[in-house]
């Protein structure tokens, strides 16, 4: 399997943009694809602003800024990903959407191109099954925000070849990331633990054991965690928690992964977390109020 030199990223949302930053910063020729030119333009602006901040903070030399920006090109034509050795998909968490994308990619990419999915909850084997090249398919789950978080959960599907996994692993390390190997199981490591844990915290609120702020204080004070589960849920978004629960519970039927009714009531009330100014806490500007 040839060395990976050019990386494609499908999807220019928060995750896709972050992955593209990681690849371009590490010196890879990086092509980011989206169906929307507007989304690409916004992503490029955010990327440039991010690198500008990196220069101001001394993490990137001023002369490196134009170089990393030149590494990065955007396109609305899927065919432009045909030059890539590795394509990382970061689109909506829907098996049908991902299957359609990979089926099209399979037509434009050469046989050696490795496909990777950034899915956090779906099965790598199942996504690979619709890619036309399941032996050259891996899971590469970056953490949000990808440009700041080093961790990447990497999974092989049932028919992923060893050479494919090794090539993707090497590319991940060459991007400056820290890969960990996990089985192709729902939620991999992070979400398999985090989604039920956060649900358990919500159930403590539901059953009147403690208020959200007290739960957060207990976890931070007792365990030294940087954030309490209720603060974290507000950051993730309660609507996103529902999607994560549905994806995880739908496959595992683990009662702890089932979405607590309180979350659905909060979402119905528009209390999605930070993004709507109210979740378990109330927010005004950058400040957080009460519980």
């Amino acid at each position, binding site marked *: 399997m040839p060395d990976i030199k050019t990386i494609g990223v499908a999807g220019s949302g928060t995750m896709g943009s972050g992955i593209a930053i990681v690849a371009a910063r590490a010196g890879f020729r990086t092509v980011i694809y989206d169906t929307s030119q507007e989304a690409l333009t916004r992503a490029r602006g955010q990327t440039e602003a991010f690198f500008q901040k990196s220069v101001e903070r001394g993490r990137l030399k001023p002369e490196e800024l134009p170089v990393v920006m030149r590494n990065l090109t955007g396109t609305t034509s899927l065919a432009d990903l045909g030059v890539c050795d590795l394509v990382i998909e970061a689109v909506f968490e829907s098996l049908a959407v991902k299957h359609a994308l990979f089926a099209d990619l399979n037509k434009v990419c050469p046989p050696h191109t490795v496909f990777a999915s950034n899915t956090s909850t779906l099965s790598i084997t199942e996504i690979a099954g619709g890619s036309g090249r399941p032996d050259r398919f891996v899971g590469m789950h970056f*953490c949000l925000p990808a440009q700041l*978080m*080093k*961790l990447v*959960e990497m999974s092989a599907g049932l028919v992923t070849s060893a050479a494919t996994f090794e090539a993707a692993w090497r590319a991940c390390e060459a991007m400056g990331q*820290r890969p*960990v*190997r*996990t*089985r192709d*199981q729902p939620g*991999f*490591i*992070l979400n*398999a*633990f*985090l989604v*039920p*844990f956060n649900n*358990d*915290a919500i159930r*403590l609120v539901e*059953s*009147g*054991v*403690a*208020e959200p702020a*007290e*739960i957060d*204080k*207990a*976890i931070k*004070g*007792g*365990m*030294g*965690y*940087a*954030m309490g*589960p209720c603060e974290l849920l507000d950051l993730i978004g309660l609507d996103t928690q529902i999607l994560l629960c549905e994806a995880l519970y739908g496959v595992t039927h683990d*009662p*702890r992964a089932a979405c607590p009714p309180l979350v659905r009531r909060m979402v119905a009330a528009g209390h999605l977390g930070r993004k709507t100014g109210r979740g378990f806490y109330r927010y005004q500007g950058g400040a957080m109020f009460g519980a």
Partner: protein
Amino acid sequence: MSTMHYQVMINGISRSFPGEHRLLAEATVDGDVVLLLGTRAGQLLPSLARREMRRAILVELGTECLGVHTGERWALEGSNVVGFARFRLGDAEPSDLVELVVQPASAPAALEAAKALFEGAGLKTAVCRDFPGRILDRLLRPFFNATLNRLDQGLASADDMDLTLRLGLGYPEGTLALLERTGLAAHAEISQALYAALGDPGFVPARRAQVAKARAHR
């Protein structure tokens, strides 16, 4: 804390304050706040003098509910008695976090006194109602069991699982290393007690914890 006069009474070994601590050193011979410490702290309650006159009586709890010591009636129970436990995992030193346990009709002044006493001694507090496991054991034990079970199932290596939790969630220490350091057998004991109290299968001690407990009792 210097303005608060409080008395400490001890009955059994205290998991919250096993050694020297500022809170113990600054206690007075009498006071309107009483701190009952030890595994049998609650047994001191019935014979405590001027019980109703005290601003707060703070009873150290193990895995039991505060209601075991105060009695309960129609969800109207509550008085100047507040339960507490300093969170501690197995053999590790107690954390700085004190869980304060209140009942439906607990006196607000008693809770405020408890907060002032512990926070004045440099500790942090979190308030919860009187349920088995309070906040931390209730949240953490199923998580610990799930981690141990996933290790058995081969989800990832122990190192990779811990690294994922540290890098991905910012935990100061991976869960497996934490359990190894503080004692799997102790986890099994607490988790088993909560399973008996709550009946939730998430509290069934993981196989590795059961093995550690069996070996500890050989």
